[in-house]
């Protein structure tokens, strides 16, 4: 029974124990293929959100909230519904494919931090 429980746990955890990777980790991956779907989490850089044609949104996400390093930043294209908390300097998680240095996201999730402040 112990074995069963542990196996069950490990199967559930193996794939999902790390929910997302950082943009720098995605860039550092040498054998990344355009076929694989990645989950990448980071901060939306200030002033990087732009509207492109046909409602596609372009923005950059980075490892850190104030970023100075190009190796930590990826450009994301997304066309779809955004969560309420999406905005500049907010933490988000994007899921999609990384093709020609552009991340084509099909899911955008926002991440909240542990701070709650009065309105």
């Amino acid at each position, binding site marked *: 029974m112990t074995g069963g429980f542990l196996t069950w746990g490990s199967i559930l955890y193996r794939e999902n124990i790390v929910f997302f990777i950082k943009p720098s980790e995605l860039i550092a991956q040498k054998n990344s293929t355009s076929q694989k779907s990645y989950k990448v989490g980071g901060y939306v850089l200030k002033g990087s959100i732009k509207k492109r044609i046909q409602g596609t949104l372009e923005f950059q996400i980075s490892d850190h909230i104030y970023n100075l390093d190009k190796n930590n930043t990826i450009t994301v294209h997304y066309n779809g519904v955004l969560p309420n908390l999406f905005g500049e300097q907010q933490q988000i998680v994007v899921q999609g494919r990384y093709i020609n240095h552009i991340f084509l996201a099909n*899911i955008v999730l926002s991440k909240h931090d542990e701070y709650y402040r009065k309105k």
Partner: protein
Amino acid sequence: MDKDFNKKDWSLFFSLTKILKIKTIIPLLNKIQKISFLLSIIAFLVGGTYIILYAPDDVLQGSVAKIMYIHVPASWGALALYLVMGVFNIFGFIKRLPQCFIIAKSIAPTGLAYCLISLITGSLWGKPTWGTYWVWDARLTSMLILCALYIGYIISTQTYESSKLTLGAYISVLGLLNIPIIKGSVDWWFTLHQPASIQLLKLKSTLDPSMLIGLVIMAFAFAFYAAAMCSCKIIHNLNFFKSR
């Protein structure tokens, strides 16, 4: 009152064994049940009024963040009740007291209810803030496993046979491994769920003080309600066990 009971006991286990006598525990639980039910009603009324009328909205999430006042105490309750259940089962193994297993069995339904409340309110909270009802991150998955453990335990301890109760106790004790995993999941791995806002051991909170008050009142309300429901169930189960 028992003569030995008044003696100064150096061993906590020894005195617990005395308290756990069915004759002693039922009148005690009757009192706990009444007082804690009354206190929970008061706390729910005070907390509810405070949350609806006075608690401020969050600067980013607005009034949606008020789900916190149900989600957080229910999650704490689900974890705490599982711990208590496990401790009673371990104690049952050590002391070979059947009533310990009965008490543990009586705690499970309230724990499952809290676990379900936590999962459902969390899911409803996730949609507007994260943009999804469910993701398979470490926190959410480990909480779902807790729910499965509760269900497994309840199914395996449906009767009062000692073999069934012992099997259930094994599940519950092994499942205790999951508790530190739930607690640590948000710190050890990248998860969509944010880290804990309140750290009891460090006495640190990242909540606005005006929100913390509401949360503390609701935590007491949930705790008293759990105490009332559990003692009610324990009395029922012990009486049934005695009359067999």
